[in-house]
Protein backbone atom coordinates (compact mmCIF):
# COMPACT_ATOMS: atom_id res chain seq x y z
CA UNK A 1 0.00 0.00 0.00
CA UNK A 2 1.44 3.36 -1.00
CA UNK A 3 0.01 6.29 0.85
CA UNK A 4 -0.70 9.40 -1.12
CA UNK A 5 1.78 11.75 0.43
CA UNK A 6 1.06 14.50 -2.07
CA UNK A 7 -2.38 14.88 -0.50
CA UNK A 8 -0.89 15.52 2.93
CA UNK A 9 -2.51 18.75 3.91
CA UNK A 10 -4.11 21.84 2.56
CA UNK A 11 -4.12 23.86 5.71
CA UNK A 12 -3.69 27.57 5.83
CA UNK A 13 -0.90 28.65 8.14
CA UNK A 14 -2.52 31.78 9.54
CA UNK A 15 -1.80 33.48 12.87
CA UNK A 16 -3.81 30.81 14.67
CA UNK A 17 -1.37 28.22 13.45
CA UNK A 18 1.69 30.13 14.58
CA UNK A 19 0.23 31.22 17.88
CA UNK A 20 -0.83 27.69 18.84
CA UNK A 21 2.51 26.27 17.70
CA UNK A 22 4.50 28.77 19.75
CA UNK A 23 2.28 28.18 22.78
CA UNK A 24 2.71 24.43 22.41
CA UNK A 25 6.49 24.58 21.99
CA UNK A 26 6.85 27.16 24.75
CA UNK A 27 4.81 25.05 27.15
CA UNK A 28 6.84 21.92 26.36
CA UNK A 29 10.11 23.83 26.74
CA UNK A 30 8.97 25.10 30.15
CA UNK A 31 7.93 21.61 31.20
CA UNK A 32 11.33 20.21 30.20
CA UNK A 33 13.21 23.07 31.87
CA UNK A 34 11.38 22.44 35.18
CA UNK A 35 11.58 26.16 35.91
CA UNK A 36 7.84 26.22 36.59
CA UNK A 37 5.90 23.18 37.85
CA UNK A 38 4.61 21.23 34.85
CA UNK A 39 1.02 21.31 36.09
CA UNK A 40 1.03 25.10 36.33
CA UNK A 41 2.44 25.30 32.79
CA UNK A 42 -0.26 22.95 31.50
CA UNK A 43 -3.11 24.81 33.20
CA UNK A 44 -1.89 28.23 31.99
CA UNK A 45 -1.25 26.93 28.46
CA UNK A 46 -4.73 25.43 28.31
CA UNK A 47 -6.38 28.59 29.61
CA UNK A 48 -4.58 30.72 26.99
CA UNK A 49 -5.49 28.24 24.22
CA UNK A 50 -9.17 28.70 25.10
CA UNK A 51 -9.06 32.42 25.93
CA UNK A 52 -7.43 33.29 22.62
CA UNK A 53 -10.11 31.27 20.84
CA UNK A 54 -7.95 28.61 19.23
CA UNK A 55 -10.23 26.01 20.74
CA UNK A 56 -13.58 27.00 22.15
CA UNK A 57 -14.45 26.05 25.71
CA UNK A 58 -17.09 23.76 24.27
CA UNK A 59 -14.41 21.91 22.30
CA UNK A 60 -11.93 21.86 25.18
CA UNK A 61 -14.43 20.40 27.64
CA UNK A 62 -16.63 18.25 25.45
CA UNK A 63 -14.99 17.37 22.14
CA UNK A 64 -13.57 13.85 21.81
CA UNK A 65 -10.97 14.92 19.26
CA UNK A 66 -9.90 18.30 20.59
CA UNK A 67 -10.72 18.29 24.28
CA UNK A 68 -9.96 16.65 27.60
CA UNK A 69 -9.94 12.87 27.49
CA UNK A 70 -12.17 12.23 30.50
CA UNK A 71 -11.78 8.50 30.08
CA UNK A 72 -8.10 8.88 31.04
CA UNK A 73 -8.86 11.36 33.82
CA UNK A 74 -11.53 9.25 35.51
CA UNK A 75 -9.56 6.03 35.13
CA UNK A 76 -6.58 7.64 36.87
CA UNK A 77 -8.63 9.22 39.65
CA UNK A 78 -10.54 6.02 40.34
CA UNK A 79 -7.42 3.86 40.50
CA UNK A 80 -5.77 6.38 42.81
CA UNK A 81 -8.77 6.33 45.15
CA UNK A 82 -8.69 2.53 45.32
CA UNK A 83 -4.96 2.46 46.05
CA UNK A 84 -5.30 5.19 48.69
CA UNK A 85 -7.80 3.01 50.54
CA UNK A 86 -5.62 -0.12 50.22
CA UNK A 87 -2.27 1.45 51.15
CA UNK A 88 -2.72 1.55 54.95
CA UNK A 89 -3.77 -2.13 55.13
CA UNK A 90 -0.10 -3.18 54.93
CA UNK A 91 -0.69 -5.70 52.15
CA UNK A 92 2.25 -4.50 50.08
CA UNK A 93 4.72 -4.83 52.96
CA UNK A 94 3.27 -8.25 53.65
CA UNK A 95 3.87 -9.37 50.06
CA UNK A 96 7.42 -8.01 50.03
CA UNK A 97 8.48 -9.59 53.33
CA UNK A 98 6.83 -12.85 52.33
CA UNK A 99 8.86 -12.74 49.08
CA UNK A 100 12.14 -12.17 50.89
CA UNK A 101 11.39 -15.14 53.11
CA UNK A 102 10.44 -17.26 50.13
CA UNK A 103 13.87 -16.42 48.72
CA UNK A 104 15.33 -17.79 52.01
CA UNK A 105 17.48 -14.68 52.34
CA UNK A 106 19.54 -15.57 49.23
CA UNK A 107 20.62 -12.19 47.85
CA UNK A 108 20.12 -12.74 44.13
CA UNK A 109 16.93 -14.70 44.64
CA UNK A 110 15.60 -11.73 46.62
CA UNK A 111 16.58 -9.35 43.83
CA UNK A 112 14.86 -11.49 41.21
CA UNK A 113 11.70 -12.09 43.26
CA UNK A 114 11.43 -8.41 44.25
CA UNK A 115 11.80 -7.43 40.60
CA UNK A 116 9.10 -9.87 39.53
CA UNK A 117 6.74 -8.84 42.35
CA UNK A 118 7.29 -5.17 41.50
CA UNK A 119 6.68 -5.86 37.81
CA UNK A 120 3.49 -7.78 38.56
CA UNK A 121 2.08 -5.15 40.94
CA UNK A 122 3.04 -2.37 38.51
CA UNK A 123 1.01 -4.05 35.80
CA UNK A 124 -2.13 -3.31 37.84
CA UNK A 125 -1.19 -0.33 39.99
CA UNK A 126 0.68 2.77 39.02
CA UNK A 127 4.43 2.41 39.03
CA UNK A 128 5.16 5.17 41.50
CA UNK A 129 2.85 3.71 44.12
CA UNK A 130 4.32 0.26 43.66
CA UNK A 131 7.88 1.49 44.07
CA UNK A 132 6.93 3.76 46.95
CA UNK A 133 5.53 0.73 48.79
CA UNK A 134 8.06 -1.95 47.89
CA UNK A 135 11.27 0.10 48.11
CA UNK A 136 11.08 0.78 51.89
CA UNK A 137 10.80 -2.97 52.51
CA UNK A 138 13.75 -3.49 50.19
CA UNK A 139 15.80 -1.05 52.25
CA UNK A 140 14.86 -2.93 55.41
CA UNK A 141 15.80 -6.30 53.94
CA UNK A 142 19.06 -4.95 52.49
CA UNK A 143 20.07 -3.55 55.86
CA UNK A 144 19.16 -6.78 57.60
CA UNK A 145 21.38 -8.67 55.15
CA UNK A 146 24.02 -5.91 55.11
CA UNK A 147 23.74 -5.55 51.33
CA UNK A 148 24.28 -2.46 49.16
CA UNK A 149 20.81 -1.01 48.49
CA UNK A 150 21.66 0.58 45.12
CA UNK A 151 21.44 -2.52 42.86
CA UNK A 152 18.18 -3.53 44.52
CA UNK A 153 16.58 -0.11 44.13
CA UNK A 154 17.66 0.28 40.50
CA UNK A 155 16.47 -3.19 39.50
CA UNK A 156 13.11 -2.51 41.14
CA UNK A 157 12.54 0.79 39.37
CA UNK A 158 13.41 -0.78 36.01
CA UNK A 159 11.17 -3.78 36.73
CA UNK A 160 8.29 -1.51 37.65
CA UNK A 161 8.49 0.27 34.30
CA UNK A 162 8.70 -3.03 32.44
CA UNK A 163 5.73 -4.48 34.33
CA UNK A 164 3.67 -1.33 33.85
CA UNK A 165 3.95 -1.77 30.08
CA UNK A 166 2.09 -5.08 30.16
CA UNK A 167 -1.49 -3.90 30.64
CA UNK A 168 -3.90 -1.11 29.77
CA UNK A 169 -3.93 0.19 33.34
CA UNK A 170 -0.23 -0.33 34.08
CA UNK A 171 1.18 2.95 32.83
CA UNK A 172 -0.39 6.30 31.78
CA UNK A 173 0.82 6.06 28.14
CA UNK A 174 -1.15 2.84 27.76
CA UNK A 175 -4.25 4.39 29.32
CA UNK A 176 -3.99 7.29 26.87
CA UNK A 177 -3.37 5.06 23.85
CA UNK A 178 -6.24 2.76 24.82
CA UNK A 179 -8.63 5.66 25.08
CA UNK A 180 -7.65 7.36 21.81
CA UNK A 181 -7.37 4.16 19.80
CA UNK A 182 -10.43 2.49 21.41
CA UNK A 183 -8.39 -0.52 22.46
CA UNK A 184 -9.66 -2.72 25.25
CA UNK A 185 -7.93 -4.35 28.21
CA UNK A 186 -7.70 -7.75 26.52
CA UNK A 187 -6.10 -6.24 23.40
CA UNK A 188 -3.22 -5.11 25.60
CA UNK A 189 -3.04 -8.53 27.24
CA UNK A 190 -2.91 -10.29 23.85
CA UNK A 191 -0.43 -7.94 22.28
CA UNK A 192 1.82 -6.52 24.99
CA UNK A 193 1.84 -9.01 27.87
CA UNK A 194 3.58 -11.80 25.86
CA UNK A 195 6.49 -9.58 24.86
CA UNK A 196 6.75 -8.12 28.37
CA UNK A 197 7.10 -11.65 29.74
CA UNK A 198 9.97 -12.20 27.28
CA UNK A 199 11.51 -8.86 28.26
CA UNK A 200 11.26 -9.80 31.94
CA UNK A 201 12.95 -13.15 31.41
CA UNK A 202 15.81 -11.45 29.57
CA UNK A 203 15.90 -8.80 32.29
CA UNK A 204 16.27 -11.33 35.11
CA UNK A 205 19.05 -13.11 33.21
CA UNK A 206 20.78 -9.77 32.60
CA UNK A 207 20.67 -8.63 36.22
CA UNK A 208 21.96 -12.07 37.24
CA UNK A 209 24.97 -11.48 34.98
CA UNK A 210 25.44 -7.88 36.12
CA UNK A 211 24.93 -8.20 39.88
CA UNK A 212 24.71 -11.94 40.65
CA UNK A 213 28.40 -12.55 41.28
CA UNK A 214 28.84 -9.62 43.64
CA UNK A 215 26.09 -10.53 46.07
CA UNK A 216 26.94 -12.47 49.18
CA UNK A 217 25.26 -12.81 52.56
CA UNK A 218 26.55 -14.50 55.71
CA UNK A 219 24.34 -17.36 56.94
CA UNK A 220 23.59 -15.80 60.34
CA UNK A 221 22.23 -12.64 58.72
CA UNK A 222 19.65 -14.64 56.77
CA UNK A 223 18.10 -15.54 60.11
CA UNK A 224 17.17 -11.88 60.61
CA UNK A 225 14.96 -12.04 57.55
CA UNK A 226 13.62 -15.51 58.28
CA UNK A 227 12.67 -14.35 61.79
CA UNK A 228 10.43 -11.57 60.47
CA UNK A 229 6.75 -12.33 60.71
CA UNK A 230 5.09 -10.87 57.63
CA UNK A 231 1.68 -11.00 59.34
CA UNK A 232 2.87 -8.16 61.58
CA UNK A 233 2.67 -5.90 58.53
CA UNK A 234 -1.08 -6.31 58.19
CA UNK A 235 -2.76 -3.42 59.98
CA UNK A 236 -6.36 -3.89 58.97
CA UNK A 237 -7.21 -7.40 57.82
CA UNK A 238 -10.94 -6.71 57.43
CA UNK A 239 -10.33 -3.76 55.11
CA UNK A 240 -7.69 -5.82 53.32
CA UNK A 241 -10.17 -8.60 52.55
CA UNK A 242 -12.75 -6.10 51.33
CA UNK A 243 -10.13 -4.35 49.21
CA UNK A 244 -8.91 -7.55 47.61
CA UNK A 245 -12.45 -8.60 46.75
CA UNK A 246 -13.24 -5.23 45.17
CA UNK A 247 -9.87 -5.19 43.33
CA UNK A 248 -10.60 -8.65 41.94
CA UNK A 249 -14.05 -7.56 40.80
CA UNK A 250 -12.51 -4.51 39.17
CA UNK A 251 -9.86 -6.52 37.32
CA UNK A 252 -12.51 -8.98 36.14
CA UNK A 253 -14.44 -5.89 35.01
CA UNK A 254 -11.41 -4.74 33.03
CA UNK A 255 -11.04 -8.16 31.42
CA UNK A 256 -14.69 -8.12 30.37
CA UNK A 257 -15.15 -4.41 29.62
CA UNK A 258 -14.83 -4.89 25.86
CA UNK A 259 -17.54 -7.55 25.89
CA UNK A 260 -19.76 -5.53 28.24
CA UNK A 261 -19.32 -2.40 26.09
CA UNK A 262 -18.16 -0.41 29.08
CA UNK A 263 -15.24 2.00 28.99
CA UNK A 264 -12.31 1.19 31.30
CA UNK A 265 -13.03 4.42 33.21
CA UNK A 266 -16.54 3.17 33.98
CA UNK A 267 -15.14 -0.05 35.40
CA UNK A 268 -12.59 1.85 37.51
CA UNK A 269 -15.19 4.33 38.74
CA UNK A 270 -17.40 1.43 39.75
CA UNK A 271 -14.49 -0.16 41.63
CA UNK A 272 -13.63 3.08 43.43
CA UNK A 273 -17.27 3.70 44.35
CA UNK A 274 -17.76 0.15 45.59
CA UNK A 275 -14.60 0.19 47.69
CA UNK A 276 -15.54 3.56 49.20
CA UNK A 277 -18.94 2.13 50.04
CA UNK A 278 -17.80 -1.13 51.66
CA UNK A 279 -14.63 0.21 53.32
CA UNK A 280 -16.69 1.83 56.06
CA UNK A 281 -15.00 5.19 55.55
CA UNK A 282 -17.35 7.77 57.02
CA UNK A 283 -15.84 10.89 55.47
CA UNK A 284 -14.19 10.36 52.08
CA UNK A 285 -12.47 13.74 52.27
CA UNK A 286 -9.09 12.29 53.22
CA UNK A 287 -9.02 9.53 50.62
CA UNK A 288 -10.12 11.94 47.89
CA UNK A 289 -7.69 14.66 48.95
CA UNK A 290 -4.82 12.19 48.55
CA UNK A 291 -5.54 11.79 44.83
CA UNK A 292 -2.55 13.22 42.97
CA UNK A 293 -4.43 16.23 41.71
CA UNK A 294 -1.28 17.80 40.27
CA UNK A 295 -0.96 14.84 37.90
CA UNK A 296 -4.66 14.92 37.04
CA UNK A 297 -4.58 18.62 36.17
CA UNK A 298 -1.38 18.09 34.20
CA UNK A 299 -3.32 15.69 31.99
CA UNK A 300 -6.30 18.03 31.70
CA UNK A 301 -4.13 20.98 30.68
CA UNK A 302 -2.10 18.93 28.23
CA UNK A 303 -5.16 17.57 26.47
CA UNK A 304 -6.40 21.10 25.80
CA UNK A 305 -2.99 22.32 24.58
CA UNK A 306 -2.74 19.34 22.23
CA UNK A 307 -6.33 19.99 21.10
CA UNK A 308 -5.20 23.45 20.01
CA UNK A 309 -2.32 22.25 17.87
CA UNK A 310 -4.46 19.47 16.40
CA UNK A 311 -7.09 22.00 15.38
CA UNK A 312 -4.70 24.43 13.70
CA UNK A 313 -3.08 21.60 11.72
CA UNK A 314 0.37 21.38 13.32
CA UNK A 315 -0.05 17.72 14.19
CA UNK A 316 -1.30 16.99 10.69
CA UNK A 317 1.76 18.71 9.22
CA UNK A 318 4.02 16.71 11.56
CA UNK A 319 2.41 13.41 10.59
CA UNK A 320 2.98 14.29 6.92
CA UNK A 321 6.65 14.83 7.71
CA UNK A 322 6.88 11.48 9.52
CA UNK A 323 5.37 9.76 6.47
CA UNK A 324 7.93 11.49 4.24
CA UNK A 325 10.77 10.20 6.45
CA UNK A 326 9.49 6.64 6.42
CA UNK A 327 8.40 6.97 2.77
CA UNK A 328 5.06 5.43 3.59
CA UNK A 329 6.54 2.14 4.80
CA UNK A 330 4.37 1.05 7.70
CA UNK A 331 7.00 -1.30 9.06
CA UNK A 332 9.49 1.56 8.88
CA UNK A 333 7.01 3.83 10.63
CA UNK A 334 6.44 1.39 13.46
CA UNK A 335 10.19 0.96 13.99
CA UNK A 336 10.80 4.71 13.92
CA UNK A 337 7.92 5.22 16.35
CA UNK A 338 9.23 2.57 18.72
CA UNK A 339 12.88 3.70 18.84
CA UNK A 340 12.16 7.40 18.70
CA UNK A 341 9.61 6.99 21.50
CA UNK A 342 12.11 5.02 23.58
CA UNK A 343 14.84 7.65 23.40
CA UNK A 344 12.41 10.55 23.70
CA UNK A 345 10.84 9.01 26.83
CA UNK A 346 14.26 8.40 28.36
CA UNK A 347 14.79 12.14 28.56
CA UNK A 348 11.34 13.75 28.57
CA UNK A 349 8.09 12.94 30.33
CA UNK A 350 6.32 10.24 28.33
CA UNK A 351 2.88 11.67 29.14
CA UNK A 352 3.10 14.84 27.01
CA UNK A 353 4.98 12.80 24.42
CA UNK A 354 2.21 10.23 24.03
CA UNK A 355 -0.45 12.94 24.22
CA UNK A 356 1.16 14.42 21.10
CA UNK A 357 1.81 11.13 19.32
CA UNK A 358 -1.75 9.82 19.64
CA UNK A 359 -3.40 12.43 17.37
CA UNK A 360 -0.34 12.34 15.13
CA UNK A 361 -0.76 8.63 14.51
CA UNK A 362 -4.50 9.01 13.95
CA UNK A 363 -3.85 11.79 11.47
CA UNK A 364 -1.25 9.70 9.71
CA UNK A 365 -3.78 6.90 9.41
CA UNK A 366 -6.28 9.34 7.91
CA UNK A 367 -3.74 10.35 5.29
CA UNK A 368 -2.95 6.74 4.41
CA UNK A 369 -6.55 5.50 4.37
CA UNK A 370 -8.62 8.59 3.52
CA UNK A 371 -11.88 6.68 3.08
CA UNK A 372 -11.97 5.02 6.50
CA UNK A 373 -13.40 6.34 9.78
CA UNK A 374 -14.05 5.16 13.35
CA UNK A 375 -12.72 1.80 14.45
CA UNK A 376 -12.23 0.76 10.83
CA UNK A 377 -9.54 3.41 10.72
CA UNK A 378 -8.22 3.13 14.29
CA UNK A 379 -8.07 -0.66 14.25
CA UNK A 380 -6.81 -1.04 10.68
CA UNK A 381 -4.64 -4.19 10.79
CA UNK A 382 -1.70 -2.25 9.40
CA UNK A 383 -2.06 0.46 12.04
CA UNK A 384 -2.17 -1.86 15.07
CA UNK A 385 1.58 -2.59 15.20
CA UNK A 386 2.21 1.17 15.29
CA UNK A 387 0.04 1.56 18.40
CA UNK A 388 1.90 -1.29 20.08
CA UNK A 389 5.25 0.16 19.05
CA UNK A 390 4.27 3.49 20.57
CA UNK A 391 3.19 1.86 23.83
CA UNK A 392 6.33 -0.29 24.09
CA UNK A 393 8.73 2.49 23.16
CA UNK A 394 7.16 5.16 25.37
CA UNK A 395 6.82 2.93 28.46
CA UNK A 396 10.11 1.03 28.27
CA UNK A 397 12.07 4.10 27.20
CA UNK A 398 11.58 5.52 30.67
CA UNK A 399 14.21 3.05 31.91
CA UNK A 400 16.98 4.80 30.01
CA UNK A 401 17.78 7.51 32.53
CA UNK A 402 17.17 8.50 36.13
CA UNK A 403 14.62 11.11 34.99
CA UNK A 404 12.93 8.92 32.35
CA UNK A 405 10.19 7.69 34.67
CA UNK A 406 8.72 8.85 37.97
CA UNK A 407 9.60 5.52 39.61
CA UNK A 408 13.27 6.19 38.84
CA UNK A 409 13.07 9.61 40.45
CA UNK A 410 11.56 8.05 43.60
CA UNK A 411 14.30 5.45 44.02
CA UNK A 412 17.07 7.98 43.38
CA UNK A 413 15.56 10.11 46.17
CA UNK A 414 15.32 7.16 48.56
CA UNK A 415 18.84 6.03 47.84
CA UNK A 416 20.15 9.49 48.60
CA UNK A 417 18.26 9.49 51.90
CA UNK A 418 19.99 6.22 52.74
CA UNK A 419 23.35 7.84 52.16
CA UNK A 420 24.06 6.03 48.87
CA UNK A 421 23.31 8.60 46.16
CA UNK A 422 22.82 7.31 42.60
CA UNK A 423 24.26 9.75 40.07
CA UNK A 424 22.59 10.39 36.71
CA UNK A 425 25.55 8.64 35.06
CA UNK A 426 25.40 5.64 37.37
CA UNK A 427 21.70 5.08 36.72
CA UNK A 428 22.23 5.40 32.98
CA UNK A 429 25.08 2.89 33.09
CA UNK A 430 22.56 0.22 34.13
CA UNK A 431 19.33 1.67 32.78
CA UNK A 432 20.35 2.51 29.22
CA UNK A 433 21.75 -0.90 28.18
CA UNK A 434 18.84 -2.71 29.82
CA UNK A 435 16.39 -0.34 28.12
CA UNK A 436 18.03 -0.93 24.72
CA UNK A 437 17.95 -4.68 25.35
CA UNK A 438 14.23 -4.54 26.10
CA UNK A 439 13.43 -2.43 23.03
CA UNK A 440 15.50 -4.77 20.85
CA UNK A 441 13.39 -7.69 22.07
CA UNK A 442 10.26 -5.67 21.28
CA UNK A 443 11.59 -4.83 17.82
CA UNK A 444 12.08 -8.50 17.06
CA UNK A 445 8.67 -9.30 18.49
CA UNK A 446 6.80 -6.66 16.50
CA UNK A 447 8.63 -7.55 13.32
CA UNK A 448 8.06 -11.31 13.70
CA UNK A 449 4.53 -11.20 14.98
CA UNK A 450 2.99 -8.48 12.85
CA UNK A 451 5.09 -8.36 9.68
CA UNK A 452 6.23 -11.96 9.21
CA UNK A 453 3.73 -14.22 10.97
CA UNK A 454 0.76 -11.80 10.81
CA UNK A 455 -0.82 -13.06 14.04
Amino acid at each position, binding site marked *: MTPDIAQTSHMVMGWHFWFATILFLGAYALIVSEKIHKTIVAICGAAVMIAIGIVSQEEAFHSLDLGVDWNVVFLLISMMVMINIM*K*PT*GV*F*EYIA*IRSAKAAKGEPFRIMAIFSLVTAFLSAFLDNVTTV*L*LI*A*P*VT*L*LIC*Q*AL*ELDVVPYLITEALASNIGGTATLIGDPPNIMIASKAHLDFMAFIYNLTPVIILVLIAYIISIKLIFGRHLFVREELKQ*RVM*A*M*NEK*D*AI*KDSVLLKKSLIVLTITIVGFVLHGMLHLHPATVALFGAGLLLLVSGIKDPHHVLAEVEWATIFFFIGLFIIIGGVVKVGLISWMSGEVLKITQGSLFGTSMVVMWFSAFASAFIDNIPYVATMNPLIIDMARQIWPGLTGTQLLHHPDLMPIWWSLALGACLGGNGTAIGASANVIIVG*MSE*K*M*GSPISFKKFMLYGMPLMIESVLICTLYVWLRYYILHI
Partner: protein
Amino acid sequence: MKTKDLMKPIIKCLSPDSTIKEAVNFLKINGDEKRQGSEVLPVVDQAGAIIGILSMHDILKAIHPFYLSMTETNLGNFTWDGMAESLARQAGNKTISVFMTRDVATVREKDSLMDCVNLMIKKNVHQLPVLDDRGRVSGMIYEKDIFYAITEVMLDKEKADKE
Protein backbone atom coordinates in the same frame (compact mmCIF):
# COMPACT_ATOMS: atom_id res chain seq x y z
CA MET B 1 18.88 36.44 87.97
CA LYS B 2 20.06 36.89 84.41
CA THR B 3 20.61 34.21 81.78
CA LYS B 4 24.35 34.81 82.08
CA ASP B 5 24.38 33.62 85.70
CA LEU B 6 22.94 30.20 84.91
CA MET B 7 24.38 29.40 81.51
CA LYS B 8 27.05 26.75 80.97
CA PRO B 9 30.10 27.77 78.99
CA ILE B 10 30.60 26.34 75.51
CA ILE B 11 33.46 23.86 75.34
CA LYS B 12 33.31 23.49 71.60
CA CYS B 13 31.40 24.86 68.63
CA LEU B 14 30.81 22.41 65.77
CA SER B 15 30.98 23.19 62.07
CA PRO B 16 28.21 21.76 59.86
CA ASP B 17 30.85 19.64 58.10
CA SER B 18 31.92 17.88 61.29
CA THR B 19 31.35 14.14 61.31
CA ILE B 20 29.06 12.43 63.78
CA LYS B 21 32.11 10.72 65.29
CA GLU B 22 33.82 14.05 66.03
CA ALA B 23 30.62 15.47 67.40
CA VAL B 24 29.89 12.63 69.82
CA ASN B 25 33.38 12.87 71.29
CA PHE B 26 32.68 16.46 72.32
CA LEU B 27 29.11 15.70 73.36
CA LYS B 28 30.41 13.01 75.74
CA ILE B 29 32.93 15.37 77.30
CA ASN B 30 30.27 18.03 77.55
CA GLY B 31 27.79 15.66 79.20
CA ASP B 32 27.63 16.14 82.93
CA GLU B 33 27.47 12.69 84.57
CA LYS B 34 25.20 13.71 87.42
CA ARG B 35 22.67 15.64 85.38
CA GLN B 36 22.22 13.35 82.38
CA GLY B 37 20.18 14.21 79.31
CA SER B 38 19.80 16.93 76.75
CA GLU B 39 23.39 18.09 76.45
CA VAL B 40 23.91 19.86 73.18
CA LEU B 41 26.55 21.62 71.14
CA PRO B 42 26.02 24.70 68.99
CA VAL B 43 26.79 24.51 65.26
CA VAL B 44 28.22 27.70 63.80
CA ASP B 45 29.12 28.83 60.30
CA GLN B 46 32.51 30.20 59.25
CA ALA B 47 31.60 33.69 60.45
CA GLY B 48 30.76 32.30 63.89
CA ALA B 49 26.98 32.81 63.61
CA ILE B 50 24.83 30.04 65.04
CA ILE B 51 23.05 27.93 62.40
CA GLY B 52 21.82 25.08 64.56
CA ILE B 53 22.41 22.82 67.52
CA LEU B 54 23.34 19.17 67.76
CA SER B 55 21.69 17.25 70.57
CA MET B 56 21.77 13.63 71.71
CA HIS B 57 18.37 13.28 70.08
CA ASP B 58 19.90 14.37 66.76
CA ILE B 59 22.48 11.59 67.13
CA LEU B 60 19.59 9.12 67.46
CA LYS B 61 18.15 10.54 64.23
CA ALA B 62 21.46 9.77 62.52
CA ILE B 63 21.10 6.04 63.13
CA HIS B 64 17.33 5.89 62.60
CA PRO B 65 16.47 4.62 59.09
CA PHE B 66 13.77 6.82 57.54
CA TYR B 67 11.84 3.87 56.13
CA LEU B 68 10.83 2.68 59.61
CA SER B 69 8.63 5.72 60.14
CA MET B 70 7.39 6.52 56.61
CA THR B 71 3.72 7.42 56.52
CA GLU B 72 3.14 5.21 53.48
CA THR B 73 4.35 2.00 55.10
CA ASN B 74 4.18 0.18 58.44
CA LEU B 75 7.60 -1.32 59.00
CA GLY B 76 8.03 -0.39 62.65
CA ASN B 77 7.61 -4.04 63.72
CA PHE B 78 10.45 -5.34 61.61
CA THR B 79 13.62 -4.62 63.55
CA TRP B 80 16.22 -7.05 64.80
CA ASP B 81 18.55 -7.37 67.74
CA GLY B 82 21.76 -5.55 66.89
CA MET B 83 20.17 -3.24 64.32
CA ALA B 84 20.88 -0.03 66.23
CA GLU B 85 24.44 -1.15 66.94
CA SER B 86 25.26 -1.99 63.33
CA LEU B 87 23.73 1.28 62.09
CA ALA B 88 25.69 3.16 64.74
CA ARG B 89 28.88 1.64 63.34
CA GLN B 90 28.00 2.96 59.88
CA ALA B 91 26.79 6.38 60.99
CA GLY B 92 30.11 7.68 62.36
CA ASN B 93 31.36 9.27 59.17
CA LYS B 94 28.17 11.07 58.15
CA THR B 95 28.26 14.86 58.42
CA ILE B 96 26.12 16.49 61.06
CA SER B 97 24.55 19.09 58.74
CA VAL B 98 21.78 16.63 57.78
CA PHE B 99 20.84 15.68 61.34
CA MET B 100 21.35 18.85 63.37
CA THR B 101 18.36 20.88 64.54
CA ARG B 102 18.08 24.07 62.52
CA ASP B 103 16.14 27.27 63.24
CA VAL B 104 16.90 27.31 66.94
CA ALA B 105 15.52 29.95 69.28
CA THR B 106 18.24 31.89 71.14
CA VAL B 107 18.44 34.19 74.18
CA ARG B 108 20.87 36.99 75.09
CA GLU B 109 23.10 36.98 78.16
CA LYS B 110 21.22 39.88 79.71
CA ASP B 111 17.75 38.34 79.19
CA SER B 112 15.84 37.38 82.32
CA LEU B 113 15.15 33.81 83.43
CA MET B 114 11.51 34.29 82.56
CA ASP B 115 12.52 35.03 78.97
CA CYS B 116 14.20 31.63 78.91
CA VAL B 117 11.25 29.85 80.54
CA ASN B 118 8.86 31.52 78.12
CA LEU B 119 10.88 30.48 75.05
CA MET B 120 11.38 26.94 76.32
CA ILE B 121 7.67 26.47 76.82
CA LYS B 122 6.67 28.24 73.61
CA LYS B 123 9.14 26.33 71.42
CA ASN B 124 8.99 23.09 73.44
CA VAL B 125 12.78 22.79 73.80
CA HIS B 126 14.96 21.85 76.75
CA GLN B 127 17.87 24.20 76.17
CA LEU B 128 18.68 27.51 74.50
CA PRO B 129 21.94 28.81 73.06
CA VAL B 130 22.94 32.12 74.67
CA LEU B 131 24.38 34.92 72.54
CA ASP B 132 26.74 37.67 73.73
CA ASP B 133 26.51 41.36 72.77
CA ARG B 134 28.19 40.71 69.43
CA GLY B 135 25.70 37.96 68.58
CA ARG B 136 28.13 35.07 69.08
CA VAL B 137 27.32 31.94 71.07
CA SER B 138 28.77 32.29 74.52
CA GLY B 139 26.95 29.57 76.41
CA MET B 140 24.01 27.27 76.71
CA ILE B 141 21.19 27.43 79.22
CA TYR B 142 19.50 24.20 80.19
CA GLU B 143 16.00 23.50 81.44
CA LYS B 144 17.34 21.53 84.38
CA ASP B 145 19.56 24.38 85.59
CA ILE B 146 16.54 26.65 85.61
CA PHE B 147 14.67 23.85 87.39
CA TYR B 148 17.33 23.70 90.12
CA ALA B 149 17.32 27.47 90.42
CA ILE B 150 13.57 27.79 90.82
CA THR B 151 13.16 24.79 93.12
CA GLU B 152 15.79 26.27 95.39
CA VAL B 153 13.68 29.38 95.67
CA MET B 154 10.58 27.31 96.29
CA LEU B 155 12.17 25.12 98.97
CA ASP B 156 13.92 28.05 100.65
CA LYS B 157 10.58 29.73 100.99
CA GLU B 158 9.07 26.61 102.56
CA LYS B 159 11.99 26.36 104.98
CA ALA B 160 11.56 30.01 105.93
CA ASP B 161 7.81 29.49 106.45
CA LYS B 162 8.43 26.53 108.76
CA GLU B 163 10.91 28.45 110.86
